[in-house]
């Protein structure tokens, strides 16, 4: 228990993680603990020194910490675990992630040519480096903005504008020029740069910077960043659960410390992780499932959950939760209730990993993992009988279902009796009709009030001087949510 701070030399990325998922999806992997190279005491001490007031919210990375690497402003998003041996491949070179250890989240890194050859080094930000999502959006919209100051009548872009050849650039590189220097050289040698509008000049610079001086931003793996990263790169893995929809589920279900939340998580563990993050190590989240095989919750491992939080994440088959007596860890217990609860309607759009890889996988790939060791093996342990007994006695304080391929009503009718009276619940679904039917049934059966189907709507804006507008591309669909409150029914 005390020794739970698992440190690993495994660098895992969305890409490689999913490759595993695709291959070994039916297997609920529980890889044993490794003997940590660094004793947990040292982490605890250092963390308590650095973050005295908020041990669960550290602002600096540490060895063994999970991080999100944002390369070139969202072009690539890689989840990694920091260790002296872990590396990140950029272009055709691998770079050690060691320099990232102990740095503040939010730090920016660039490739520098030092004594030991090219390596990642922290960039001290200055004003003009404020590249952000909005500029990214801008880049996508070549034709939208008609520049007020100049226009492009005079510019013929025929690839002859650049006098620096790729051989020249290679030569510069081998002479130790930094990426930034190469970008400056490209600008100096562009025949058209001066004729471009200020806006086009910015665009040109950014394009070249991304290619020759890529940047790696170190981000915290919070629900916010994890959900955004998955939604952007692998939406099908998380059942297209958009951040605003996820945030609504947590609100509708009144998730907070000391609550006992029952979840059906067919979104890879994102929901379970998000609930656990809100519990902060107090209360519990029970990831239940129909049948004999627990639902995968690999995403939970991306969070930097400590032992306390991990221990609050449990799983339990619906059959056991719904049975009148506690079955003492009967491993493959089949149960009628469990079977009835599942009449899935196959209707999700998620496609096979192979398809995903060809469609939205980045061409640049990730270094191979050194060891397949996972942190947080404790998270998702089977709920012990005494905990199940408590849940049965008190009822769960709320229920969240995110099972895009299952029939909402089939699940709800079995799960709602497990939650306390007056407890709120929220069900996420990709299709409207199953939720409408479910709402209707709940009304007929007088099981719940305050029923509402809602659909979140999210719009991001580009806010730039004289160029403010909603993003031109938008995700038009965040799913539907049925929310309500269980009532006490005398019968």
């Amino acid at each position: 228990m005390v020794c739970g701070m698992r440190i690993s030399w495994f660098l895992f990325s969305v890409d490689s993680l999913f490759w595993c998922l695709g291959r070994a999806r039916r297997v609920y992997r529980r890889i044993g603990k490794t003997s940590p190279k660094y004793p947990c005491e040292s982490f605890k001490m250092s963390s308590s020194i650095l973050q005295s007031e908020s041990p669960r919210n550290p602002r600096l990375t540490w060895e063994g910490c999970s991080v999100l690497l944002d390369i070139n402003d969202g072009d690539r998003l890689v989840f990694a675990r920091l260790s002296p041996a872990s590396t990140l491949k950029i272009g055709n070179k691998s770079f050690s992630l060691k320099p990232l250890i102990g740095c503040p989240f939010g730090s920016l890194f660039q490739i520098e040519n030092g004594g030991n050859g090219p390596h990642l080094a922290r960039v001290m930000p200055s004003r003009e480096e404020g590249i952000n999502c909005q500029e990214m959006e801008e880049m996508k919209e070549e034709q939208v903005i008609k520049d007020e100051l100049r226009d492009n009548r005079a510019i013929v872009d025929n690839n002859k504008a650049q006098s620096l050849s790729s051989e020249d650039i290679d030569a510069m590189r081998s002479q130790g020029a930094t990426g930034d220097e190469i970008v400056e050289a490209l600008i100096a040698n562009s025949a058209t740069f001066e004729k471009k509008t200020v806006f086009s000049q910015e665009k040109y610079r950014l394009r070249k910077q991304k290619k020759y001086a890529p940047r790696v931003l170190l981000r915290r793996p919070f629900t916010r960043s994890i959900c955004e990263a998955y939604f952007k790169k692998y939406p099908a893995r998380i059942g297209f659960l958009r951040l605003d929809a996820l945030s609504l589920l947590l609100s509708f279900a009144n998730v907070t410390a000391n609550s006992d939340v029952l979840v059906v998580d067919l979104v890879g563990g994102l929901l379970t992780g998000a609930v656990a993050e809100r519990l902060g190590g107090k209360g519990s989240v029970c990831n239940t499932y129909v049948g004999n095989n627990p639902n995968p919750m690999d995403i939970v491992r991306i969070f930097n959950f400590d032992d306390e939080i991990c221990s609050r994440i449990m799983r339990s088959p619906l059959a056991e939760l719904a049975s009148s007596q506690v079955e003492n860890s009967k491993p493959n217990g089949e149960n009628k209730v469990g079977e009835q609860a599942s009449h899935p309607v196959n209707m999700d759009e998620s496609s096979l990993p192979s398809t995903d890889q060809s469609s939205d996988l980045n061409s640049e790939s990730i270094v191979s993992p050194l060891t397949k060791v996972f942190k947080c093996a404790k998270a998702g342990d089977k709920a012990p009988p005494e905990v199940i007994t408590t849940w049965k006695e008190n009822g769960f304080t709320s229920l969240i279902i995110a099972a895009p391929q299952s029939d909402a009503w089939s699940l709800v009718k079995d799960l709602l009796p497990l939650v306390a009276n007056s407890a709120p619940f929220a069900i996420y679904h990709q299709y409207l009709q199953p939720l409408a039917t479910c709402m209707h049934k709940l009304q007929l059966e007088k099981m719940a009030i305050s029923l509402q189907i809602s659909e979140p709507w999210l719009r991001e804006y580009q806010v730039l001087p004289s160029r403010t507008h909603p993003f031109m591309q938008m995700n038009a669909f965040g799913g539907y949510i049925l929310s309500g409150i269980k009532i006490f029914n005398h019968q």
Partner: protein
Amino acid sequence: MLPTDELKKISFTRSVRDGDLVIVYERHDIMKAVKVCEGSTLQNRFGVFKHSDWIGKPFGSKVLSNKGGFIYLLAPTPELWTLVLSHRTQILYIADISFVIMFLEVVPGCLILESGTGSGSLTTSLARAVAPTGHVYTFDFHEQRASSAREDFEKTGLTSLVSVGVRDIQGQGFPEEFVGLADSVFLDLPQPWLAIPSAERMLKQDGVLCSFSPCIEQVQRSAETLQSKFTDIRTFEVLLRTYEVKESKTDSSQVDGSSVGLPPCKRRLRSKDSDDMHDDSSTTVMVRPCSEARGHTGYLTFARLRCPS
């Protein structure tokens, strides 16, 4: 309201007690917060309800009036509270609230600064998110509004999580004692750009700020101010579209032309007896968006404090 006090947590065994705050639910759009008091009564169009009848009933129970009318007694949550609180100002609703808390990365133990307090709608949800060990320091320049909010937090049992200060944050900034201690800062001010330099000093490194503004000009000016010390500046709008569900008898008999223009026999689900409904084969559940909706609340601009140079 929050299960920080294990004894007040809802469960199968917990019943309504004297002194409890309950949400009296008449209809999805008619609710009221009531403090249960042995000798009191509640009167509404359905009749008179004696509080003494409520005590000992499980939460979620239907209780009757002297005339046989009924209401439900619900345990309060921040979502229900948002629907019943008194509007001293324009308030934030669940869609904005949920997104703000998620995007501000508020987790248990966080220290949050907020201005203005307004009606305390967001504050209540912030308190839930930082519980049990974090704290929300919220400020309003309006003395009376602040003390009303304080009373509300007392009522909802959040005083250990929330402190309300009277202060003009635009003019004076946040108190110096919070320098470098805030995990996140939320601004709902007419001129947020005036408060941004102070917010910036309060935030921990990599901390997140959110500014809520109804008008785009406020966003433009805030974004400009944020540019110098913040990164990852992003502006969003969040709305919620609700759907209405009704059942419709699938009528395959011939309808003659003249009656087509007449309104159909419409039956809203919530006003229906379940008894005459169990021949599911002949009814269809129909669902469509509600036509009236909140079309805009405000823009949410988020920014992350840039790492020190």
